[in-house]
């Protein structure tokens, strides 16, 4: 049972009733007394929402920024901040209503909602959204803000593959188009009642498909269309500060509790399950990456630890409330192994320049998590599934949702990058690229000494 489905249904019903309310119905509703948000749930969701913000500013900024070269540090941070800020504004203008608004026509319903909540029309401090428990609600503004942070971090994640060479203006145009034609529809399809994957019964607790596969595949398409950085892979492009990357990793891990445990939409046992899974899957993945490095004949590295943390967080995202702790531990370890192979073996072999491994870790880790969720959900493995859980059928559903998301994200990203290229030219000049985007695009340096 999907909570997000329920909340979407609840919100949809609310809007429909507001639109079609008859006097008799209104009287009846007044007698039944609408559910009042619990202050504990509301407080937890507000905390979760700002925790996800901390994942973006400064978490992802430091994580990605430290991995870039020092001449591009500010440009990475500004691109992430700019894209996230833009996402917040368009989310309240039309993103929310597209993803979680009232039901659209039958033919459109699997893909988007309708536009009745444009500019958050009709939402007031008294509006509520359902959670996964009947009769439990949270303020609609909190749900809107919580989901807003997901849109903001997802578009920022994509940028990891194109940094150090894409124009800032191209980032903003890309973000606008991509959110509109890729993120909002995919969020609707996975999480909203009536959405394509939701109706199929695909499990995605906190965004493995919506956030990570979506962002990772988009990152791969974007970096192939944009082209490699000058000098890649012959010149040294070592991270300029693994210290900052480590700080960013820590902030991401902390913020991820808002992401995962917040996705229960209540302060309850499901949130607690998501919380412990977010601890242990991540710990397992961090250690596993170090072991994998050793097995491949290298030293256990700091960047390996950080990479394992992110791979584990990504993999446990769809499984957070859909797995037992020991299923999550296995999931984290498997994600580390597969992500390592993609980052260290497949990427060099194929030669694409996914600069900060947005595809190698988010895309691949997301796929491992989404498909693995169909396994670890089983009660026999400690998962929360019912006794009648059909693993084979669930796995087919998970794979179908993954494949459909890959296709949707790939085509949508190709369109978004194409438009960004038409409008802005997409790529900085070779002079700016060599000198660094900090000076060339923003007129500042990250470090003056």
């Amino acid at each position, binding site marked *: 049972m999907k909570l997000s489905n329920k909340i979407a249904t609840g919100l949809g019903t609310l809007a429909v009733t507001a639109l079609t309310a008859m006097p008799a119905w209104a009287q009846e509703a007044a007698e039944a007394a609408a559910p009042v948000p619990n202050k504990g749930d509301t407080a937890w969701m507000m905390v979760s929402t700002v925790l996800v913000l901390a994942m973006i500013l400064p978490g992802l900024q430091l994580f990605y920024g430290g991995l870039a070269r020092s001449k591009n540090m500010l440009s990475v941070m500004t691109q992430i901040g700019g894209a996230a800020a833009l996402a917040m504004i368009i989310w309240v203008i039309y993103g929310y209503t597209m993803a979680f608004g009232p039901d659209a026509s039958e033919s459109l319903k699997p893909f988007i909602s309708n536009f009745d909540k444009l500019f958050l029309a009709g939402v007031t401090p008294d509006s509520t959204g359902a959670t996964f428990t009947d009769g439990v609600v949270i303020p609609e503004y909190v749900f809107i803000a919580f989901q807003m942070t997901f849109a903001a971090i997802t578009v920022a994640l994509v940028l990891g593959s194109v940094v150090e060479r894409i124009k800032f203006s191209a980032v903003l145009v890309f973000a606008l188009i991509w959110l509109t034609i890729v993120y909002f529809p995919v969020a609707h399809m996975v999480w909203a009642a009536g959405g394509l994957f939701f109706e199929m019964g695909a499990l995605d607790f906190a965004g493995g498909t919506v956030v990570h596969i979506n962002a990772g595949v988009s990152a791969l398409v974007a970096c192939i269309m944009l082209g490699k950085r000058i000098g890649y*892979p012959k010149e*040294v*492009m*070592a*991270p300029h500060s693994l210290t900052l990357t480590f700080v960013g990793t820590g902030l991401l891990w902390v913020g991820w509790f808002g992401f995962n445990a917040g996705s229960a939409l209540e302060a309850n046992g499901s949130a607690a399950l998501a919380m412990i899974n977010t601890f242990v899957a991540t710990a397992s993945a961090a250690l596993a990456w170090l072991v994998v490095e050793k097995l*491949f004949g*290298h*030293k256990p*590295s700091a*960047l*390996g630890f950080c*990479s394992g943390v992110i791979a584990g967080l990504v993999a446990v995202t769809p499984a957070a409330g859909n797995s037992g702790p020991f299923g999550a531990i296995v999931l984290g370890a498997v994600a580390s192994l597969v992500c*390592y192979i993609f*980052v*260290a*073996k497949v*990427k*060099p072999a194929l030669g694409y320049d996914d600069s900060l*491994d947005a595809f190698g870790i988010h895309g691949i880790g997301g796929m491992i998590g989404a498909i693995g969720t169909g396994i670890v959900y089983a009660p026999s493995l400690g998962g929360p599934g019912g006794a009648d859980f059909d693993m084979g059928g669930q796995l087919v559903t998970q794979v179908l949702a993954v494949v459909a998301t890959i296709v949707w994200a790939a085509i949508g990203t190709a369109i978004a990058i194409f438009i960004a290229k038409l409008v802005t030219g997409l790529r900085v000049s070779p002079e700016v690229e060599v000198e660094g985007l900090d000076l060339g695009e923003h007129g500042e340096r990250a470090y003056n000494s």
Partner: protein
Amino acid sequence: MKLVIAIIKPFKLDEVREALSGLGVQGMTVTEVKGFGRQKGQTEIYRGAEYSTNMVPKIKIEVATTDDLAARVVEAVQQSANTGAIGDGKIFVLDIAQAVRIRTGETDDVAL
């Protein structure tokens, strides 16, 4: 007067300094440098991508000394900086044409 320039492994600096102080050497200049010799640098690995840096961190010591002490300075550095492993470094000896102490204007051996 001779200028002894030695490129040594950084962790050997304290031993070299003690050895030279034992000889009565009054002062030295130390610089952190990078370079390579037959050792051919070292490799860094980030997420599986290997970077050969070619440059290894070293310490450069410069000691100005009188002619009669020069041979013992070279010997002391050679012995104290030696590990027997590749990358121990090199010692160069140059002639000094003139030395002046800025504070007093004294010149040559007295200025050392």
